[in-house]
């Protein structure tokens, strides 16, 4: 990266926030006169991030403790540490993998949503709404029905392929420069409708895949085991690294292609990197948990209200708060659905849908 970009990226925060093009997807443009000085804001953001981490830790503990059999904290602790404790099996075989998977998938979806919103300058961008999860689902359905793939290790590659195809397609067809939020959402919805009708057609051909896929297509962490976690973790970690590395150049890109180029960034390269990151993140998360909507929409929006549009803060916050939301929804589903459970994808749809509708009803995004 050239020194020019680095210099711009480290400009004082208010300058960046006050640039109108940066805030196309942000709720408000902060009023400069009342904004606190940069140093105090830096401290506030750091403290906020610590608070978010604390929240995540609480939810992680809850996710291990709450379930068909609720464990007191002391038992959770001894189950985590001691081989001979009675809770060891419950904690290590079921709750811990489930929690880790939620952590990974939540982070993946939140960060993917944030970088997509930045890349497309579209406040409605969400891997679920734009059809990327549906693309992964369709590929998994093909793999499960026609190719006899049943294990998560096989799903991942197909899910990545499907996610990659749809990401490229939705971006080429409905996105690109000059696409409005409504156009992109429409392109995504159209792809969603196509792909889900394909998935249900595939499920019809084979009752066994129907039985497997109907639980998977809701979006659930219930089938998590340690093999799933270790299988998807590398993809998600690489995706996260790419996304975080793209944060600064994406900030520059928010000023417009010409400005970004003038600052030494390479727009085509950035777009390619972000698409790779989104594909890895969404494909792996979808392979492991099924398609989950709205996490990638909800979290970046809530976070942006705290941090502003600067991706160098937005992404870490999303990486912490998105898994908190996903695991929180999972715990909620386990509590509300007793004696069974509500799948997490259903909980996030019901939680996230109203926010989407609220964003639309404010009218900011409703104009082509």
């Amino acid at each position, binding site marked *: 990266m050239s020194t020019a970009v680095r210099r711009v990226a480290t400009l004082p925060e208010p300058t960046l926030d006050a640039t109108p093009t940066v805030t196309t997807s942000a709720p408000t443009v902060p009023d400069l006169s009342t904004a606190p000085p940069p140093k105090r804001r830096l401290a506030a953001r750091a403290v906020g991030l610590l608070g978010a981490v604390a929240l995540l830790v609480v939810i992680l503990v809850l996710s291990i403790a709450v379930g068909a059999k609720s464990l007191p904290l002391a038992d959770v602790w001894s189950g985590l540490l001691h081989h001979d404790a009675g809770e060891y099996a419950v904690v290590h075989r079921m709750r811990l993998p489930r929690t880790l998977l939620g952590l990974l998938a939540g982070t993946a979806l939140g960060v993917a949503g944030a970088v997509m919103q930045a890349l497309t300058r579209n406040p409605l961008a969400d891997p679920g709404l734009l059809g990327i999860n549906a693309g992964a689902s369709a590929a998994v359905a093909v793999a499960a029905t026609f190719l006899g793939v049943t294990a998560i290790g096989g799903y991942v590659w197909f899910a990545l392929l499907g996610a990659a195809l749809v990401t490229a397609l939705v971006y080429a*067809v409905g996105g690109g420069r000059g696409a409005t939020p*409504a156009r992109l959402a429409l392109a995504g919805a159209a792809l969603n409708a196509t792909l889900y009708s394909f998935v249900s057609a595939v499920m019809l051909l084979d009752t066994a895949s129907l039985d497997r896929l109907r639980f998977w297509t809701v979006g659930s962490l219930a089938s998590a085991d340690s093999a799933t976690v270790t299988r998807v973790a590398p993809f998600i970690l690489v995706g996260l690294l790419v996304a975080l590395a793209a944060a600064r150049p994406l900030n520059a890109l928010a000023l417009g292609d010409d400005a970004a180029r003038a600052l030494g960034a390479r727009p085509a390269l950035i777009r390619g990197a972000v698409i790779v990151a989104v594909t890895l993140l969404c494909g792996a998360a979808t392979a492991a948990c099924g398609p989950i909507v709205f996490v990638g929409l909800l979290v970046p929006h809530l976070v942006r209200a705290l941090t502003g549009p600067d991706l160098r803060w937005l992404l870490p916050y999303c990486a912490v708060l998105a898994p908190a939301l996903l695991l929180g929804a999972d715990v909620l589903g386990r509590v509300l659905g007793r004696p069974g459970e509500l799948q997490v994808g259903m909980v996030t749809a019901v939680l996230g849908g109203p926010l989407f509708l609220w964003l639309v009803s404010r009218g900011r995004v409703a104009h082509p």
Partner: protein
Amino acid sequence: MTVLRTPGGLSVRFRPRALAVGLGATVLAAGLGLVALGSGDYPMGPTDVLRALTGGGSVAEQFIVTELRLPRLVTALLVGAALALGGAVFQSLVRNPLGSPDILGFTQGASTGALVVVVVGGGSLALAGAAVVGGLATGLLIYALAWRRGVHGYRLVLVGIGVSAILTGVNGYLLTRAPLMDAARAVLWLTGSLDGRGWANAGPLLAVTAVLAPLVLVGCAPALRMMELGDDTASALGVPLRRLRLVLLASAVLLVSFAAAAAGPVSFVALVAPHVARRLTRAPGPNLLPSMALGAALLVGADLVAQRAFPGHQLPVGVVTGVLGGGYLVWLLAVERRAGRL
């Protein structure tokens, strides 16, 4: 535009090309219908079919044609026409080529209603009723949520996308609640199928279409054409915008919901038929009548393909329309984007 005047002073305006397309599509639907009536385990030639239809032929032939195959064909024709009309009205109202009930969430709402019945338990009549109630409730919800001093195109589309995403989650959840056999039945219904459809399925849809199609075609089409000029122009021309939108939306939702009740939410007919009609007629405006004829022909044709494509294995018709419609849609998105219309 051609004007036909009678000596009595009455005049009818029509576009020759649109008329030709409408007639051509009707003939196509009738021809495909004849093939559908004649094909199956007991194949019959067109003349035999016509003889059986008009009361001739052997008792067996009459039974096969009028009792077994005709209800299915009538259901297919009506579902295709109703979906296409509903879709044409939606696309015209939201002024967007993609504003079809598949994307706006009405079909998902109808599916939610039907799935509730599958999970709770109930016959096919209850299932059809629940589909209509679900579709209507979703329509009302979307209208209420999108209403803000009138309903405008893009907000309606976006609210629809949001509602349909929520309902997709709910539907998936309901599917996991059902026993496997019921789930299989539900997925079959969700795909859209014409298997075993009888007069009980065609009847309610026929009644609704008979009432609503003339209302929309005769009562609202001229005003709808003016609305496409823009809200300001239309109200300057004396169109009661708010009332008209409500009537049109209600009619379209009813048509789509009853079609879903009869055959399940067959995908993409509502989206594709009005498009193809517009491209063929090259006429501006909603092209309601050619759309209906094309929708009917499309569904009968798709059903024929679904029954014949894999010998010994019948596919539900929704699989065929889904695959065809999906391909068409992707192509359309690319074309419309390049032309800057989307």
